[in-house]
């Protein structure tokens, strides 16, 4: 199963896990499975109409899936999927 690396800002929605193994043959499936296992993640990854949010970048290993096959990018055992959100600083409100 591919592994999804969870960045700091989203770890609160994965029970603090930094890495989650999920099923799925494509990056899109893996993320959907991740979001259904951790429903609170959903609104942070997807827009209301189900598109990946534009400030959330997804990488297969070191390559942005936008420049592979997008959500159809194939993933296999041992592949590392990383979610890299934009961060601005530690200031809070």
């Amino acid at each position, binding site marked *: 199963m591919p592994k999804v690396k969870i*960045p*700091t*800002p989203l770890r*609160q929605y994965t029970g603090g896990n*930094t890495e989650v193994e999920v099923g799925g043959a494509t990056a899109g499936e893996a993320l959907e499975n991740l979001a259904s296992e951790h429903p609170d993640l959903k*609104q*942070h990854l997807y827009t209301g109409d189900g598109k990946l*949010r*534009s*400030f959330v*970048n997804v*990488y297969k290993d*070191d*390559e*942005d899936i936008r*420049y592979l096959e997008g959500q159809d990018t194939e993933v296999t055992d041992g592949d590392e999927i*990383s979610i*890299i*959100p*934009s*961060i*601005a*600083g*530690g*200031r*809070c*409100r």
Partner: protein
Amino acid sequence: MQTRQPLVESPNGALELSNEEIARYSRHLIMPEVALEGQKQLKAAKVLTVGTGGLGSPLALYLAAAGIGTIGIVDFDVVDESNLQRQIIHGTSDVGRPKVESAHDKIKDINPNVEVRVHEEALTSENALEIIEDYDVIVDGTDNFPTRYLVNDACVLLNKPNVYGSIFRFEGQASVFYAEEGPCYRCLYPEPPPPGLVPSCAEGGVLGILPGAIGTIQATETAKLILGIGEPLIGRLLLYDALNMRFREMKLRKDPNCPVCGENPTVTDLIDYQEFCGIPQAESAEQVNGVPEISVNELKQKLDHGEEINVLDVREPHEYEVANIGVRLIPLGELPQRLAELDQDEYFVVHCKTGSRSAKAVKLLQDAGFQNVYNVKGGITAWSEEIDPSVPKY
């Protein structure tokens, strides 16, 4: 040795180093990658650091020590006690002073040869081009999305390299955005997150040492660009995970459809970045909209009069441990599951650190049918400032 065109041409005989400078820069001068010529390039260089906070502190200190000739600093803030845990350019005796003043003095103390240009103002769409134009390299050490997009766009429009660094909790990112040679910040993140998804205090914070790591990476990249040595971080995003002590690197590509550096740019002038980032003019107005509020003074009066009020604290237990006003704690995240513990017919006043999370809690309670729920304006911070200074402010 020189792998690329240096950003600052060697001034050769037009610029000399004094004997004091030669002694000072000895460890540079004995390395062929820098040597006398490189040291003169550094001296001829003008670097702008946007922000003199967590990232700007180590950046400015190292750039000054390394002999950058002109360092510009932009900041409108004053030094606060809560800055000292990571903003090492400011000291305890600087609390209350403008950050640019404190930074100026520290830079001059480290290296009096540096010309410090102070811009005591916020970088805005009105002044950014004018300020940035005079510099060779811009280093982004800001802490908010509007300024990051502003710095990016201004750098693309003026064809300047933007040395990027960003930090959060135990994690940092660094890259060099230089549209002439590679992607810009917008190629990486075309849009900012909506304000509602920006971390609240329950999720914020930063390890004090973290900006040291990222800021020095930015300073390193700045020096390399000026000297034209090594391989810059252009087209690469460096990720640093301090907790697991791991560096990773992602490939960045120039987006041909990028609205600012792409083939058919639609952003050809600076825009309103507050609006772009969805931040309403009156800060936090969007949170408070429709949520009834109570000031700390009103709350104090009501409590003094012995009114039947349930005060609820929706912060995290580790925050409660730092400072509390002795009221019931239900962290915002647990509130939906714990509604049954509360009687909807009673009067509730909810507080957090500054009022943002508690506004969400009020909304949540209202939606669950609670009629009398009020948000404490300014949270426990306001309580500490206006009612009881014995409650520590964090």
